[in-house]
């Protein structure tokens, strides 16, 4: 028997690989398979290649890495698999192997390092926001579209309309509940979320308070490590996880609430991520057990705040890291249905990723753009007045391809209903 091509640090396990029976039920829900129709860019094909690498029959460098890199990590295959294959675990074990053992071309290395030097840092993101606002004022995007290489062009096209006031605003550390307290929770405010979607965080605080939750939002929190975890940067992810646990475990709260699908899924993974670290394993498991997506928490609470009518046809887009990775599909819908007048519609091909997928739309701009356009077509097909989704990555991606439909996070719509204003109007009294 030849030796495995993986190194000895947490390679994808033989047992998990054996779970795949090669039935192919995952093919239709895989975004890259939908785009290219090539076996090695399907979950079944990728698992097959992992299997061969584990047997030492193929090397990691070359085609193997190319197809692992091409995976969005959307986990639609996990949902569609009848055999219970844990592709999420397999991918999470494989990506760090690639990062450690396969040298990347210099430009690729720089680009990836650049992303990780910027996104997880709120201060750097704010600095970038200043630059961005200036950049937009000077109408540079039109010029950039002509001269930048594809990856940088994609990254700049994703930049939202920057509002400096909200990028620099800070959240109140403690928000008191309306009426008798039902729960005490801590809010993860996120990095991209807090700088570019600050209003989602304030809406989350208001809605939770209106529903009787005391909300603590620690200032010292940093990046949760989700982007790194999903990109195979294990050391980064583990360090961030430990910091996040240390920040939150001190707080006397019932739950830790997240309003970013990607972050929520990684917070729930901490127990697994740190399982082999005796100092952290127990703490991580205890932490993960407390994590709830904001819609998950709201669905648990019997509504108490009065909802005002919003007569609108609202399309709900399942963020992959909420639907596929966390299995949260019904909760956001049931929360939105508590708003009188909302006509909630599903999208065709709802299980297909929009192409955002963490850093994917920056490192793989072409397939990401094709998927974005496809999702935009499916949204237009149901002609909604509003599109609602619970992930800033999806919002940034979809805005690029769909500038004619207003988009909100579910808590923003609920917030508007509770405040009794039109959803596209600015919220009252920050």
């Amino acid at each position, binding site marked *: *028997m*030849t030796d495995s091509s993986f190194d000895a640090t947490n390679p994808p396990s033989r047992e998990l690989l*054996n*779970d795949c*029976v*090669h*039935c*192919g*039920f995952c*093919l*239709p829900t895989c975004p890259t*398979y939908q785009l*290219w*129709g*090539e*076996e*090695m860019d399907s979950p079944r*094909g990728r698992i*097959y*290649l992992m299997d*061969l690498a584990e047997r030492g*029959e*193929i*090397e990691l460098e*070359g*085609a*193997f890495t190319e*197809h692992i890199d091409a995976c969005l990590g959307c986990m639609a295959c996990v949902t*569609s*698999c*009848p*055999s*219970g294959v844990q592709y999420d675990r397999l991918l999470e074990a494989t990506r760090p192997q690639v990062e450690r053992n396969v040298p990347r071309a210099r430009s690729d290395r720089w680009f990836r390092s650049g992303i990780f030097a910027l996104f997880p840092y709120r201060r750097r993101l704010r600095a970038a926001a200043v630059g961005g606002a200036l950049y937009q004022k000077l109408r540079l995007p039109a010029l950039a579209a002509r001269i930048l290489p594809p990856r940088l062009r994609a990254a700049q096209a994703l930049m939202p309309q920057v509002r400096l006031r909200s990028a620099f605003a800070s959240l109140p550390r403690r928000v008191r509940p309306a009426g008798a307290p039902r729960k005490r929770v801590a809010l993860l405010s996120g990095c991209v979320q807090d700088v570019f979607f600050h209003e989602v965080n304030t809406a989350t605080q208001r809605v939770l308070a209106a529903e009787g939750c005391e909300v603590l939002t620690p200032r010292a929190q940093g990046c949760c490590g989700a982007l790194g975890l999903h990109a195979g940067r294990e050391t980064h992810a583990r360090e961030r996880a430990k910091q996040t646990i240390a920040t939150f475990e001190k707080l006397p709260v019932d739950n830790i609430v997240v309003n970013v699908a990607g972050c929520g899924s990684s917070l729930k993974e901490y127990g697994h991520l740190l399982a082999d670290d005796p100092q952290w394993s127990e703490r991580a498991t205890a932490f993960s057990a407390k994590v709830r997506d904001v819609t998950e928490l709201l669905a648990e609470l019997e509504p108490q705040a009065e909802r005002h009518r919003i007569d609108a046809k609202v399309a709900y887009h399942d963020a992959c890291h909420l639907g596929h990775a966390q299995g949260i599909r019904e909760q956001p819908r049931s929360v939105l249905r508590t708003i009188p007048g909302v006509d909630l519609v599903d999208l065709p091909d709802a299980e297909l990723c929009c192409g955002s997928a963490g850093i994917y739309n920056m490192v793989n701009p072409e397939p990401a753009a094709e998927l974005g356009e496809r999702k935009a077509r499916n949204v237009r097909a149901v002609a909604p007045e509003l599109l609602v989704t619970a992930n800033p990555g999806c919002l940034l991606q979809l805005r690029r391809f769909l500038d004619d439909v207003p988009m909100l996070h579910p808590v923003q719509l609920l917030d508007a209903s509770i405040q009794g204003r039109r959803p596209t109007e600015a919220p009252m009294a920050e």
Partner: protein
Amino acid sequence: MLDRTAHEALVAAVGPENVISDPVQLRSYECDGLTGFRQVPSLVVLPHTTEDVAQAVRACHRHGVPFVARGAGTGLSGGAMPVADGVVISLQRMREIVDIDPVDRRAVLQPGVTNLDITKAAAAHGLYYAPDPSSQQVCTIGGNVAENSGGAHCLKYGFTTNHVLSMTVVLPDGEIVTLGGDTGEQLGPDLRGVVIGSEGTLGIACDITVRLLRTPETVRTLLADFPSVTAAGDVVSDLIAAGIVPAAVEMMDNLAIQAAEKAVGAGYTLTTPAALVVELDGPESECETQFDEVRAICDRHGCTRLHIAETAAERARIWKGRKAAFAAVGRISPDYIVQDGVVPRTQLAEVLSRIEGMGRNAGLRVANVFHAGDGNLHPLVLFDEDAGELERAEELSTDIAELCVELGGSLSGEHGIGTDKACSMPRMFGEADLSTMDRVRAAFDPRHLCNPGKLLPTPRLCGEQPGRYRPHPLEEAGVIERL
């Protein structure tokens, strides 16, 4: 290896961006849904149009290169396993629904369109495509044509061949012909019918025109538990004897129920020895009357729980459990073989008890999921390869298929013969039958280039027992490698 001129001709036929030649990438095409049989192809081409397919086939024909058409690669008999030094023609970039004609109730499809997508596209017009193999969410219409696929509802509605009106076929020499026509009844020999179910040995079906049916006014689905598989089998016989033609009658035994329930949570009873899913469809009044009869027959045979699906969602769940059952068996056993055979309905009880005995003798568990209405069995032989049970399992699986023939049935109901059962064909057919089939095949493909080695036994194939891939000792020693 392909020689250079053949390689260049194929690249020219479909364009370099539609060719896969990297040795690592080619490995992912070495098997279909039946992973025991593997062969790395020399090249994979992914045409976009019928003309591309014809160009690729012409190149193969000119250079004497064998080729195998491949749809979604879900087949369970190794029908899309590549041939040594051959080319795989993958139809996964031909996924366009060319036309839906709601007035004449027809759809024109490229071969890579999935079975379920036909129904999804037709649903807006109140129409659907009837054959529904359990893998319908992924299997393609091209593959359905090759295998003449059935599914749970073929008891009432028939197989693929009953629903394909016409198709454009690329013959093994690259000629494009149209077989069949817009009306069901055609003059002359039914060549369309000859090609359907020929397992990709007579050509490649490209533009396929299928019949669409009106979505039934009413659908009633019930789930009934029984104290034994025999009791459930008797219900099936009585249903048919009473003149009822259900849309589907499916049976699962306890092991299959456990697996499916684990995968889907469909609401099956975990402890029941057997369960039937009976579905009736049609006008409401007809459904009502027949439904009462079905209930009475179930009660007569000691039905322990009868559950009627209240909502469309619940009905979908019951079916999802049934349709996911094969793959779900992966949850209760490390490895398994899906078998496919047919017995006359009257032999159901007999075949089940004999299978049980054979399993006991072999020391292996056998789960049973099947289309009970037409006697199409899918015994699943469970084993653990790491415990050295593979050979015993393969033997038992073959014995079960051959038992079906012995009881007056068939080697395959719908999964095809492929690579897997070619060598069992002489059990079912005599010399004369087989040589006639071979002559039909030679009339289409005199050079034996189109999916060779499948369906019909050949001395080379059957002289030595085919088995799972085992590395050559030199391969293990790292002296040679498989490309």
